[in-house]
C-alpha cells in the first residue's frame, strides 16, 4: 500500500453537556484509509461514529468542538484550514451523504439545482456539463427516468430515490473521499437493498474512498473492506471485514456479533391451547364509513387471525402496512369499521369507551419509543403505581410493594422507583414501559416495535426478558415489527401484512420454509446476512418501482416479480393454503412460487 489517502491521528472531540461542562465524546481516534478503500465505522448510539465522520469534513455539530489531534487528506491538514479554505475543501474533496435524505434536501429547490450546486460553487465546468454529469450519475445509480428526475422537487420522489440522489450530489464534484452516514437506516428493508446495490456500484466504479457509518453489521459486511468498532467514543478494534466477522478479538465486538445473529427463543405454545384473541374479517381505517362498512381511507382490509393462550404472534410489514393500526384497533383506540375482535370467545365492543374496565385490563399496549411512552414529569413509582391503583384498587404501602415486585420482575433495582424517566437509560426505560403493562396483570400484551429504537445488544436483552416473562406469567403477546430477525426469534406464529392485507400467515417454522408469498419472499431475501458477498450473490426479485395510480386488485401487483397482468390487477387474489401449513393471498400456485423462491439463509 502506498501512502494513505486519509490519516486521522489522536482525534478528540468535546461537547458541552447539560451542566455546561465540556466532556470528550470522541477520544484518541487514529486510523488511515487507502485510496479506493471503504472503511466502516460501526457502533451503537453514543459511540461517536457520526462525530468522527463529520470531523473528516472539518465540521462539528453545534455545541461540539474538535479539541485535538490531526486529520490529513492527501497533503491537506484539514483541521488547520481557514474558513474559506474549508468551504472549498468541503464538497470538492470530501463530501457527505446524510441519514435522512428527506430532511437534508431543501424542499424549495429542484433536485437538479441541489445536485449540481457543488459543481457550480467549486467552479467545475459549466451548468450544462454539471447537468450532464448529474444525469450520468442518476443513470449509474439506477434511478428511474434519469433525464427528467432532476426537474422534480424533493417531495415528489420516494425516500429510496432521494437517498440515491443524495449520493449523486455527493459524487458530482468527484471528491477523493465520500462519507456515508447511516444512509439506509431510515429505509424499509426492501428499499434498502436496491440503494445498497447502487451505492456499492458507484463507489467501486468511481474508485472513490469511502467512510461508511452504520450500526448494522450485516449492512457493513456488504459494503466495507475494513471495519472500525467504536464504543463510547473510543476505538475497540479495527481490522479487515472478514477477520472482524469471523474472528473478532475484542469482547465488545463479540457481543455485537452475538446480538446480531438471530437466536431462537421460546418453545411454541401447545397447539391445543384455547384461543385467547380471535379476529375475524377486520377492516379499519380513517374517514367516513360507508354503507358497506368501508372507511374512506382504509388501512386494514379483511384481517383474520387467532392468538392462542400463551403463544406469541409476530406481525411483520413495512411502514404503511397497517401493522401499528392493528394494535390500535385491538386496544380500542381506533374502532374497527367492520369485523369482530373476540377475547376468550366474547366479542369486544369496537370503541374504547364501551369496553368494561376488566376488558381493558386484559389487553395492554407497549409502545416502541420509551422516550414518548413514559410521562417525563412522573416518577417511575407513580407510572407503575397508577395502573395498580386503577385496575386493582390497591393503595398505599401495598401498592408500593407491588411496584417493587414489578421492578424486580423486569430486573430493575428498587432504587429506580424514585427517578423520573429522563434519568434512565434507553433499556431501563423500555423495562419500565414493559412493567407498566404487566402492572395491569393482562392476558395479552401488544408490543409495537419495542426494540427498534434500542441498540442491538440492549434490544436482545429486552427480547430475552420478554420471552422469560411470557413463559413465567403465561402471557400471550402480539409482537409488531419491521424486522424479520426479531419476529423469527421470539414468535410462535407469524403474519405478514402488505398494504393492509394479510398476505401470508403461518407458524414460525412455516415462515422459514419456501415457498412464500412473493412479498414474503422479497422481504426474506432483502434482509442482509452477516457474510461478505451476500449482496453480490443475491439476485433481484424485485419488479418495477411501485407506480402511483389506482389500487390494483392485488396490492402487491406493481412490485411483484410474478405478477400476471390481466389477472392479478383485475381479480382479487384467492386465499391459498400451502403444504407447509401457511395461508397466502396469491394467484400463483405452490409450484410456481417454489420455483421463484430464493433459499433463505442458514
Amino acid at each position: 500500500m502506498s501512502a494513505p489517502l486519509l490519516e486521522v491521528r489522536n482525534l478528540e472531540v468535546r461537547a458541552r453537556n447539560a451542566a455546561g461542562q465540556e466532556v470528550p465524546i470522541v477520544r484518541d481516534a487514529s486510523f488511515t484509509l487507502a485510496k479506493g478503500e471503504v472503511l466502516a465505522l460501526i457502533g451503537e448510539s453514543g459511540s461517536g461514529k457520526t462525530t468522527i465522520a463529520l470531523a473528516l469534513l472539518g465540521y462539528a455539530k453545534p455545541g461540539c468542538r474538535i479539541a485535538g489531534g490531526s486529520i490529513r487528506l492527501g497533503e491537506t491538514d484539514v483541521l488547520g484550514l481557514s474558513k474559506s479554505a474549508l468551504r472549498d475543501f468541503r464538497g470538492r474533496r470530501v463530501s457527505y451523504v446524510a441519514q435522512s435524505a428527506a430532511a437534508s434536501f431543501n424542499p424549495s429547490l429542484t433536485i437538479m439545482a441541489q445536485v449540481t450546486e457543488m459543481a457550480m460553487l467549486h467552479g467545475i465546468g459549466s451548468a450544462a456539463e454539471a447537468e450532464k454529469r448529474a444525469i450520468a450519475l442518476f443513470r449509474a445509480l439506477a434511478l428511474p427516468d434519469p433525464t427528467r428526475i432532476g426537474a422534480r422537487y424533493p417531495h415528489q420522489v420516494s425516500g429510496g430515490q432521494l437517498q440515491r440522489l443524495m449520493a449523486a450530489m455527493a459524487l458530482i464534484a468527484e471528491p477523493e473521499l465520500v462519507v456515508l452516514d447511516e444512509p439506509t437506516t431510515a429505509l424499509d428493508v426492501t428499499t434498502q437493498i436496491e440503494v445498497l446495490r447502487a451505492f456499492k456500484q458507484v463507489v467501486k466504479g468511481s474508485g472513490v474512498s469511502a467512510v461508511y457509518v452504520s450500526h448494522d453489521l450485516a449492512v457493513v459486511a456488504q459494503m466495507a473492506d475494513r471495519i472500525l468498532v467504536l464504543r463510547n467514543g473510543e476505538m475497540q478494534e479495527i481490522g479487515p471485514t472478514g477477520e472482524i466477522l469471523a474472528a473478532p478479538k475484542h469482547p465488545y465486538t463479540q457481543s455485537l456479533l452475538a446480538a446480531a445473529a438471530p437466536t431462537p427463543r421460546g418453545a411454541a405454545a401447545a397447539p391445543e391451547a384455547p384461543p385467547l384473541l380471535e379476529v375475524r374479517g377486520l377492516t379499519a381505517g380513517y374517514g367516513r364509513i360507508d354503507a358497506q362498512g368501508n372507511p374512506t381511507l382504509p388501512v386494514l382490509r379483511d384481517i383474520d387471525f387467532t392468538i392462542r393462550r400463551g403463544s406469541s404472534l409476530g406481525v411483520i410489514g413495512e411502514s404503511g402496512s397497517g401493522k401499528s393500526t392493528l394494535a390500535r384497533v385491538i386496544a380500542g383506540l381506533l374502532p374497527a369499521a367492520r369485523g369482530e375482535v373476540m377475547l376468550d370467545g366474547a366479542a369486544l365492543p369496537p370503541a374504547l369507551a364501551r369496553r368494561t374496565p376488566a376488558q381493558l385490563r386484559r389487553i395492554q399496549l407497549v409502545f416502541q419509543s420509551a422516550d414518548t411512552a413514559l410521562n417525563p414529569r412522573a416518577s417511575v413509582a407513580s407510572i407503575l403505581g397508577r395502573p395498580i391503583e386503577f385496575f386493582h384498587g390497591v393503595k398505599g404501602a401495598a401498592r408500593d410493594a407491588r411496584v417493587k415486585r414489578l421492578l424486580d420482575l423486569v430486573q430493575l433495582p428498587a432504587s429506580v422507583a424514585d427517578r423520573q424517566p429522563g434519568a434512565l437509560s434507553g433499556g431501563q426505560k423500555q423495562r419500565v414501559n414493559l412493567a407498566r403493562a404487566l402492572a395491569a396483570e393482562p392476558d395479552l400484551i401488544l408490543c409495537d416495535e419495542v426494540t427498534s429504537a434500542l441498540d442491538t445488544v440492549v434490544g436482545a436483552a429486552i427480547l430475552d426478558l420478554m420471552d422469560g416473562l411470557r413463559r413465567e406469567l403465561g402471557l400471550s403477546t402480539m409482537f409488531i415489527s419491521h424486522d424479520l430477525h426479531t419476529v423469527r426469534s421470539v414468535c410462535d406464529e407469524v403474519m405478514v401484512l402488505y398494504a393492509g392485507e394479510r398476505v401470508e400467515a403461518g407458524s414460525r417454522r412455516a415462515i422459514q420454509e419456501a415457498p412464500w408469498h412473493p412479498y414474503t419472499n422479497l422481504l426474506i431475501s432483502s434482509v442482509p446476512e452477516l457474510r461478505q458477498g451476500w449482496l453480490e450473490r443475491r439476485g433481484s426479485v424485485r419488479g418495477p418501482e411501485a407506480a402511483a395510480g389506482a389500487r390494483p386488485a392485488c396490492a402487491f401487483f406493481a412490485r411483484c416479480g410474478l405478477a400476471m397482468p390481466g389477472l392479478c390487477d383485475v381479480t382479487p387474489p384467492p386465499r391459498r393454503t400451502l403444504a407447509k401449513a401457511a395461508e397466502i393471498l396469491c394467484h400463483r400456485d405452490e409450484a410456481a412460487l417454489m420455483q421463484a423462491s430464493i433459499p433463505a439463509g442458514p
Partner: protein
Amino acid sequence: MIRRLSPAGLLGLLILAFWVAMAVFGAAVAPHAAGRIVDMEVFLPVSADYPLGTDYLGRDMLSRVLHGTRYTVGVALGAALIASGSGLMLGMCAAVWGGMVDGAISRALDTLISIPSKMFALVVVAAFGSSVPVLILMAGIIYTPGAYRIARSLAVSVNAQDFVTVARARGEGTLYLVRAEILPNIIGPVLADFGLRFVYIVLLLAGMSFLGLGVQPPNADWGSLVRENMAGLHEAAPAVLMPAFAIASLTIGVNLAIDVLGGGRREGDGH
C-alpha cells in the same frame, strides 16, 4: 424549572416582586395622599422633597405612581388570569376531546382573534363604558384566543405522545388525562405565556388609559398619569416620563423573568 438564575432573570424577578409589593402596600408607603396638592408649582423637576417631581396640579408624582400601581398591576393581573386560565382550560379540552369540540372552540376563538385587540377594546368601551370590572373582563376576553392557541398546540403535541395513549387505552377519564398527564408537561411554557399575556394587557390598558378610555378619574393608573400630564411634555417634565418609565420597568422586568422560566414562545404571537 428554575435552574440557573441569570443576573438578568434575577433582576426581572426583583423588579416584578417590587411592583407586586407596591400594588398591595403602595397606598400605605406613599408619602402623600393621591389627590393632595402639595405644592403650588406644577411640573416641578425631580427634587429631594418630590423624588418624581409634581404633576399638572402640583401633586406629588411619587405618591400618584404608587397609588396607581394597584390599578395597573391589579387590573392586568386579573385580566391575565382570566385569559390564561380560560385559554388553558379550553386548550386542554380541545386537545383531549379533539374532533367537533376542538373545531367549534377553535373556530369561535379564531373569530375573536380576527378583531385587533385595540379595536375590540374601543368597541367594548364605546358600548359599556370603562369601569374596572369591564376593563378586566374585556382584556381577559381579548387575550383568551392567544392563550388558547398556545395551550392547545402544547397540549396537542403532548396528547399525541404514547404515554397519553397508554393512559387512554387504560380507560382513564378526561380529568385524569388533563391533570396528571398533560398539565405537568406544559406548565412551564404556559407560565411563560402567562407572563407575556400580562405584558400585553399592561400595554393595552395603559394605551386605553392614555386615550382617556381606561381607568377613570379620580382613580388613575400609570397610563392615565401620562395622559393628564401631557401638557408637561413640552417642558420634558418628569410627570410625563416617570409613569411611562414605571410601565416600561414592569414590562421589561416580566420579560426578563420569563427567561428564568425558560422555553416561553415569544415570537410569532403579535399584540
